[in-house]
């Protein structure tokens, strides 16, 4: 390996170290300097992320041996198209949610009124928690070691739960519920790791793929179940709506956009890696059925909600359902289109959903509440916010031009080719239901002439952050080809699509 490549690969290290550094500085700093540490992190982490993504684009897949030992003795990172696509998405979403947070986190819970003796939570620890969340996401996407991934999952779960709890009483019970679900999921995952490690003596995902057999089905079941808890696949979504709706808006954006995608990513990584040789057709059918049920149940619940953030949270339950269709559509006789389409959909949903939550944050900031009945005509005083909401909504509907359209197109095409007509119907039917709940918000906000009185002025960076994410979700449509090319780096799905022996 030549000198410049070592320096280029070091960007992978910086993309993990710098967010943890920023979080540590924000913890160390006093009241005055805390925001400086936050701004440093918000500037430096995306730069490192972009450089790391560019390195992958230029050098191809990188297997980075931490400590120079190499698996099975040491821990390896694997930077391929799949992991770096998610690292890049994380960088974009957390940068913009962070910009939103710089303005909105000063007051507890986005300016919502707190009543009674319910003590206002301190926000002194928001930035340390936020950057630790960022660092643990990047470390998780890069790690190729089953046990190291467990530690990353715990870091992610703890920082998510703590960030959720920053918004007061309902948020606290939702957060502790999530903490238990997260611990339960991690321990199920870890027990699976123990069985795999016990049987094969290695923790490296690629090495495990070479030796895994149908005797590892128990590990598959344990690890998959654990990650389904964390990904909130119907009917294990019970914790999600309250947790995501009660959190401060930038946190909701990170949780709904990224954190549930992290455990989904790990599922994909496992099913396309160590578990690829296993007979998983039946299990994939179960996941697909649950995904279809999630689309219907989540959408119907979203249609029934009376509060904006709850509606968006139930929409996440529904949209997560689409992601799980890739398992029956992509397995067992590998259909690459389903895998890449599913991942692409995950990215477009990450952008669109975080945009929607940031919009909701602007609305709550302005109106002090998110009751849909009292938000009629809100588009008049908040045109930018509601325009961003509409753009992001287009992606949820899956109509062109949007990232959601391309993702759904790939999934439907895979479904038709595989003869899974029912899934094709569900995918487009889910789009209709999404249209229902998006218009339930948009139509009254646009059509009513009289707008709510007594609104607070929303700082422009908050609206700009939401709008940028929504535009990015739409632009994804035009970037589809480069993204699919990037996703092919290192051929992460080769084991399930017949490209490898």
């Amino acid at each position, binding site marked *: 390996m030549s000198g410049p490549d070592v320096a280029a690969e070091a960007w992978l290290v910086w993309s993990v170290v710098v967010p943890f550094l920023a979080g540590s500085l924000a913890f160390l700093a006093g009241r005055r300097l805390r925001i400086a540490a936050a701004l440093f992190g918000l500037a430096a982490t995306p730069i490192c992320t972009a450089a790391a993504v560019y390195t992958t684009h230029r050098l191809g897949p990188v297997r980075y041996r931490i400590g120079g030992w190499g698996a099975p003795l040491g821990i390896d990172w694997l930077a391929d198209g799949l992991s770096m696509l998610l690292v890049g998405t994380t960088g974009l979403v957390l940068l913009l949610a962070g910009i939103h947070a710089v303005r909105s986190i000063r007051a507890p819970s986005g300016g919502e009124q707190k009543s009674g003796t319910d003590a206002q939570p301190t926000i002194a620890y928001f930035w340390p928690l936020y950057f630790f969340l960022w660092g643990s996401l990047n470390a998780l996407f890069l790690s190729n070691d089953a046990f190291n991934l467990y530690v990353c999952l715990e870091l992610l779960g703890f920082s998510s739960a703590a960030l959720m709890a920053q918004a007061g009483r309902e948020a*606290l*019970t939702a957060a502790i519920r999530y903490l238990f679900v997260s611990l339960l999921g991690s321990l199920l995952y870890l027990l699976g790791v123990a069985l795999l490690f016990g049987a094969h003596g290695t923790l490296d995902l690629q090495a495990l793929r070479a030796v895994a057999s149908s005797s590892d089905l128990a590990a598959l079941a344990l690890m998959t179940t654990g990650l389904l808890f964390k990904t909130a696949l119907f009917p294990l979504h019970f914790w999600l709506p309250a947790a995501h709706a009660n959190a401060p808006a930038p946190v909701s954006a990170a949780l709904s956009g990224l954190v549930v995608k992290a455990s989904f990513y790990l599922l994909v990584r496992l099913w396309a890696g160590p578990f690829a040789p296993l007979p998983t057709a039946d299990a994939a059918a179960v996941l697909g059925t649950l995904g279809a049920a999630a689309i219907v149940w989540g959408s119907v619940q979203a249609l029934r909600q009376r509060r904006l953030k709850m509606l968006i949270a139930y929409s996440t339950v529904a949209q997560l359902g689409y992601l799980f269709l890739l398992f029956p559509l992509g397995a067992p006789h590998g259909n690459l289109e389903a895998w890449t389409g599913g991942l692409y959909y995950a990215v477009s949903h990450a952008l669109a959903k975080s945009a929607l939550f940031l919009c909701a944050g602007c609305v709550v900031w302005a109106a002090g509440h998110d009751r849909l009945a009292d938000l009629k005509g809100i588009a008049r005083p908040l045109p930018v916010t509601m325009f961003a909401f509409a753009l992001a909504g287009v992606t949820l509907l899956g109509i062109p031009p949007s990232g959601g359209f391309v993702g759904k197109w790939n999934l439907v095409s895979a479904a038709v080719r595989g003869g899974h007509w029912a899934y094709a119907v569900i995918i487009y039917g889910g789009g209709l239901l999404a249209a229902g709940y998006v218009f339930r918000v948009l139509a009254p906000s646009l059509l009513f002439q009289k707008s709510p009185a007594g609104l607070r002025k929303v700082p422009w960076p908050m609206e700009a952050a939401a709008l940028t994410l929504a535009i990015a979700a739409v632009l994804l449509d035009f970037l589809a080809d480069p993204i699919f090319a990037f996703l092919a780096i290192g051929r992460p799905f080769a084991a399930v699509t017949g490209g490898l022996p």
Partner: protein
Amino acid sequence: MPVLDTGQLYGVTGAILFSLGLYGTLRHRHLIRKILAVNVMGTGVFLVLVATRYGRGVPGAPDPVAQAMVLTGIVVAVSATAMAIAFTLRVHATTGSAHLPDADAEEPRP
């Protein structure tokens, strides 16, 4: 002749502990009970982890990698417990109860 060897015996014990802990975690709504149950689950996993690697490289000796992983896991479990107890105390201070309410009760207030 024993039915189970040393590694299997500890492994099976770990599996029983894990199952008991899982049952307790799902069954109980009192937060302290849940915390205890999660810790029982964790102990079960650690036992399985060490047991399945017992004597695999050097006969009759535990595997240093598995030992290191369990040490890491214990520290994570301690941190999780501390965090969960702190959350429980806050829940108790604000709601007067240490039980986990129904998920529906957490919808944002008007």
